[in-house]
């Protein structure tokens, strides 16, 4: 090896990258250039870590950590767009409102929703569910009726079970007609915690 090659190997310039600052700047520039289709960020909550996904249209997805972060990310990339960045700025408002909800300072969410991940009858069911007020509960049958198919309680249950925007679209407020809890995509423990937080179940 020649002396010159040795000097090239020994003197690689010192790299330094301030990652959080770099990521924030990249998110801002991508957003300004309309190249950022989906921004996401995580928050801590009494239900564990939540990851929120936001598009220019609104809140697209709220994911529980139990859903597997990588799997959710891949699903959003495939179904919506692969132009996804971890970009806290765009998700600030959703995260702030969720924090407020868990701190019992907020009873309703005021966020635009991007319904891209929900289609047909399921969208009707979830839109009706989004209107259910804090502290009240409904039934699968009533949600089916609200979506225009009174006899489709089971289909309404499926739609609620695959709700991509839990908590903000409050599928936890929908119970069986006999008062039993029914199901919950995030697990029944989380459903109980949410209902207790809203005073619908004894804490």
């Amino acid at each position: 090896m020649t002396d010159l090659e040795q000097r090239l190997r020994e003197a690689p310039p010192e790299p330094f990258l301030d990652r959080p600052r770099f990521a924030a700047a990249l998110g801002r520039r991508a957003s300004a250039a309309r190249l950022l289709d989906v921004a996401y960020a995580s928050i801590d909550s009494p239900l564990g870590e939540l990851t929120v996904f936001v598009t220019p249209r609104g809140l697209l997805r709220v994911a529980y950590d139990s859903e597997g972060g990588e799997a959710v990310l891949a699903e959003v990339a495939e179904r919506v767009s692969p132009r996804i960045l971890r970009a806290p700025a765009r998700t600030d408002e959703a995260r702030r409102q969720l924090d407020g909800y868990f701190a019992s300072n907020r009873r309703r969410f005021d966020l635009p929703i991007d319904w891209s991940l929900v289609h047909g009858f399921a969208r009707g069911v979830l839109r009706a569910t989004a209107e259910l007020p804090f502290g009240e509960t409904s039934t699968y049958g009533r949600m089916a009726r609200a979506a225009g198919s009174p006899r489709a309680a089971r289909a309404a249950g499926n739609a609620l079970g695959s709700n991509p925007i839990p908590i903000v679209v409050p599928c936890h407020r929908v119970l069986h007609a006999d008062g039993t809890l029914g199901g919950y995509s995030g697990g029944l423990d989380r459903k109980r915690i949410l209902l207790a937080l809203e005073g619908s179940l004894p804490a």
Partner: protein
Amino acid sequence: MARPVSSRVQLPPFQRLVDDHGAELHRFLVASVGPTDAEDCLQETLLSALRAYPRLRHADNLRAWLYVIAQRKATDTVRSRQRHRAGALDGVEERLVAPAHRTGDDDLWSSVRALPAKQRAALVHRFVFDLAYRDVGERMGISEEAARQNVSAGLRRLRVEVDR
């Protein structure tokens, strides 16, 4: 919202590319354009990639694809600096480089940065990343033989510069 056209190629979320390759692309750019401009150059690289991303026809070698874009952005940066410098008083800009960023063999690296784009990229891949010629070629989107030629041509030119 942009959607992948016609072909249904499964592209990973772009953030995955940033997480997997961001740091080494930065290192590549620090070597190629210097520490002062490397960060902005990396931003330009990633924005360019993000713009083209949904139109990619396959996801076979995303890393090489990113390096080719970075190499192009490095060339843009070096050229625009040369244009600026041509208008400035000789030597004045040199002193504006932050002292904290100066490294041991600064003169050598200034000479590397002044090389033609392919020679510069080939030298960085070969010596900073310590890659075999086959991998240098792969990251540059050229053949192994072309990679070898670019490295030796780069070294020849550097030798002339350094001995001067």
